[in-house]
């Protein structure tokens, strides 16, 4: 047996340590069969059979389960092995002295990439320090959340001030003197942009079904953003495209099929979202590693099986003004100025400047401003970007809203906030608080993954979305893993979650006494943190 050397990878360097109880193991092989990361294996150990000094040569070979010690095939802690073990013989223990990412960089001379969430939660969440503190009791009537009528709708598209509306009165009737900017009343939650490729075809279809079902059966006008990976032609030519917000990002993937389908489209899409940046990795472009570029992904995107790196910026756009002229104008033109066009940027110190500039858009073609916070997830990123770049969503959303308020222009370009919503358990509460702080709506990808069975956590479990080996079949692209995902169940669960969230949003709107969305109603919020109170301009309570 070769000697163990210090300058090689050891089990104690890995992020998760397998704890194996041999006495409980029946060697059924399920744990090793289920592991998509090939991180554990059956192995034969040689053991002494007796402690006798006379028979000291006597050994036997036994079958055990062992952990792979490898930079490529290592345990991410997903826990599938423990889930399938009939006897509880396997446990995964988080290694607090993990050296894996050091070893990776040292041995591969490459930046460490991962997917999922930032696992460096250094500051706690602002939203958790905010409560809904203004409850209508004797002051004004509160509502009955279950039984009264609520209007959970928000504008998507440019909103003109009353004096700028192109209306005139002719023969006692209001007439439109020029076309108004397109505007749609949609549900204040948008299924956030996860591309075909970043997620599996089954996951993407489940989200699309849930979207269509909520619209057509429950009358909830929820929209789904496609992500930058194209959209199946079938969907483009169907009536369901009106629930879809098409995304264009710096890679411009998938637009060939969109443009080719245009003559046969019977409905306009719900909108277009220009992705400039994403909260999980601001300043970095989209990333889809070759392992996930399955054949159909290659087709839709028009690329071979290779690592797909979207440029960090839109090539050809060098200023905010130019982006308005070029991107917004072109995207408005694509559907004859009938479809709202919005933009998504990563929250940043500079977000307010961008928003202010867009507010001055003289053509009225900027239909929404999406801000994506630091805690957002992603299909793949360099760990350095994921963990160390970005800006929390709450204060930046607030800054943008107040910047508009100070100019008397709030609501003209609707604000949508996202990035890690639902991180600590309540998506509805997060959404409601952001709406009170000035958001017209929110977007989420994270919750959709969690609902679909994602096993990842904010403390480092799994988060291997970049590998294509997603044990839940959500972010995988090979058949044996994707087919673990039950489209019907995931679609149903997504629907159920939104129905539950709908009730919860009403449960928060009712006591505040609002039957419509309380956009900017920061008087409804209190905080027990003085700094947050001062920064967000909400009441300090103790």
């Amino acid at each position, binding site marked *: 047996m070769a000697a163990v050397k210090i300058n090689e990878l050891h089990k104690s360097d890995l992020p998760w340590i397998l704890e194996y109880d041999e006495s409980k193991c029946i060697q059924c092989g399920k744990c090793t069969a289920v592991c998509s990361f090939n991180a554990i294996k059956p192995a034969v150990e040689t053991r002494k059979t007796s402690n006798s000094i006379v028979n000291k040569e006597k050994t036997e070979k036994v079958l055990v389960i062992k952990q792979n010690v490898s930079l490529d095939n290592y345990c991410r802690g997903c826990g599938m092995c423990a889930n399938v073990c009939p006897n509880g013989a396997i446990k995964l223990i988080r290694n607090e002295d993990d050296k894996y990412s050091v070893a990776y960089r040292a041995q591969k001379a490459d930046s460490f990439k991962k997917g999922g969430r930032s696992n460096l939660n250094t500051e706690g969440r602002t939203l958790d320090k905010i409560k809904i503190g203004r409850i209508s009791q004797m002051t004004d009537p509160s509502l*009955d959340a279950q039984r009264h009528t609520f209007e959970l709708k928000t504008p998507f598209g440019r909103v003109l001030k009353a004096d700028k509306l192109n209306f005139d009165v002719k023969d006692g009737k209001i007439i439109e003197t020029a076309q108004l900017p397109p505007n749609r009343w949609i549900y204040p939650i948008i299924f956030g942009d996860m591309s075909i490729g970043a997620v599996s075809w089954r996951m993407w279809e489940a989200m699309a079904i849930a979207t269509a079902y909520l619209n057509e059966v429950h009358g909830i006008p929820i929209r789904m953003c496609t992500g930058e990976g194209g959209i199946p032609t079938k969907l483009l030519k169907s009536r369901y495209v009106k629930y879809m917000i098409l995304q264009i990002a710096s890679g411009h993937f998938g637009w060939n099929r969109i443009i080719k389908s245009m003559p046969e489209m019977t409905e306009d899409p719900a909108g277009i979202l220009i992705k400039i940046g994403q909260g999980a990795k601001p300043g970095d472009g989209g990333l889809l590693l070759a392992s996930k570029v399955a054949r159909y992904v290659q087709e839709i995107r028009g690329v071979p099986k290779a690592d797909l790196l979207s440029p960090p910026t839109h090539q050809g756009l060098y200023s905010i003004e130019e982006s308005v002229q070029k991107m917004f104008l072109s995207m408005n033109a694509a559907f004859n100025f009938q479809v709202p066009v919005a933009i998504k940027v990563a929250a940043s110190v500079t977000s307010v400047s961008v928003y202010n500039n867009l507010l001055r858009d003289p053509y009225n073609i900027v239909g929404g401003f999406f801000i994506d916070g630091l805690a957002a997830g992603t299909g793949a990123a360099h760990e350095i970007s994921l963990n160390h770049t970005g800006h929390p969503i709450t204060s930046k959303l607030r800054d943008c809203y107040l910047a508009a308020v100070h100019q008397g222009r709030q609501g003209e370009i609707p604000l949508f906030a996202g990035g890690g919503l639902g991180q600590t358990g309540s998506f509805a509460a997060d959404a409601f608080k952001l709406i009170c702080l000035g958001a017209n709506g929110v977007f989420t990808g994270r919750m959709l993954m969690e609902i679909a069975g994602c096993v990842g956590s904010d403390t480092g479990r799994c988060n291997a979305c970049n590998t294509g080996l997603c044990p839940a079949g959500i972010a995988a692209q090979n058949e044996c893993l994707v*087919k673990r995902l039950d489209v*019907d169940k995931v679609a149903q669960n997504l629907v159920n979650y939104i129905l539950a969230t709908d009730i919860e949003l009403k449960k928060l709107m009712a006591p505040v006494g609002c039957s419509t969305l309380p956009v900017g109603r920061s008087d409804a919020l209190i905080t027990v943190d003085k700094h947050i109170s001062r920064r967000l301009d909400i009441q300090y309570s103790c």
Partner: protein
Amino acid sequence: MVCIIHTLKDNDRMSTQELLQTIARKIEEGEREFEIEACGQHDITGKGANLLFRITNPGQRVGAMGMDGVKIIVDGSAPADIGWLNSGADIVVKGDGGDTAAHCAAGGKIYVGGRVGTRSGALMKHDPKFEPPQFWVLKNTGSFSFEFMGGGIAVVCGFDCDGLSSVLGNRSCVGMVGGVVYVRGKVEGLAKCVEQVKLDKFDKDFLKSGMKEFLQEIGRTELEQDLLDFKNWSKILPLPKEQKEKKISVKEFKEQEWFEGGLFGDLVEDNGEVFGLAQSGDARIRKPEWEKDLCIDCSLCLNNCPQKAISKDLTRYNADSDRCIGCGICSAVCPRSAWKMV
């Protein structure tokens, strides 16, 4: 002897407190019959058995918390909350009632000879140890009537309602979970949690006997024949919980409305099968491959395979894909690495 109380003398109005305490004192002194010329005083009723009140111009909540053995007759109309929390009194209002008439009534009878306002009959209840409350209205109710109703019987006769789109107002019966509302005439905007159905024989018998007494009390006996023509009557009942949501399921939506063969049907091969974890066949992440040249025919693989998937014929070993889950034990125990997991 009838105890007559005038509540307004020389511009001096008796307060609600004075009036109610006067009534209480008189009852204690043995008075049983009252004639009250009220001036908007609230909560007019009395505590005791065999009490009769004839009232004009009452304020809100006439007959509130009414008790068994109390009868109240209002000559004319009464404002909001007639018979609020009525527990047993018989209350007759010959004119119109205001909003929230019979609110939370759980016993007794409330008869109104005109219209009642919004949220009337809301939160009515029925304690099964006692007779159910009855609430009869000659004409119509305002909107949100019978909201959150939990029990009891309401009868809305829809008389003199020509031109009204709904004799129960809009959004009637929201949150209704018990009791029954009999109604004559058009109903619109009913809550989704209830159903409107035809009367059966029991209902008709109840209405026949009850109508006689109701019309006598409000002094409109001439209407009996018209009102007992059952062709315009129906009743509203809460839907059983399982019937409230009659929407198609996501699965049905997918089967009936979604793309045949799935959204990605022309892009990937997918028959919709859902793989369990650690299963055989195509669900395997890794599959064993056997290499003849390396095999020394020791049969360790065959003996150790937990799925009994490996078999041996004359010249070769074979892993049955219907049994093999891809655990790799064959590969681990093989002394010559003849099995490889790929």
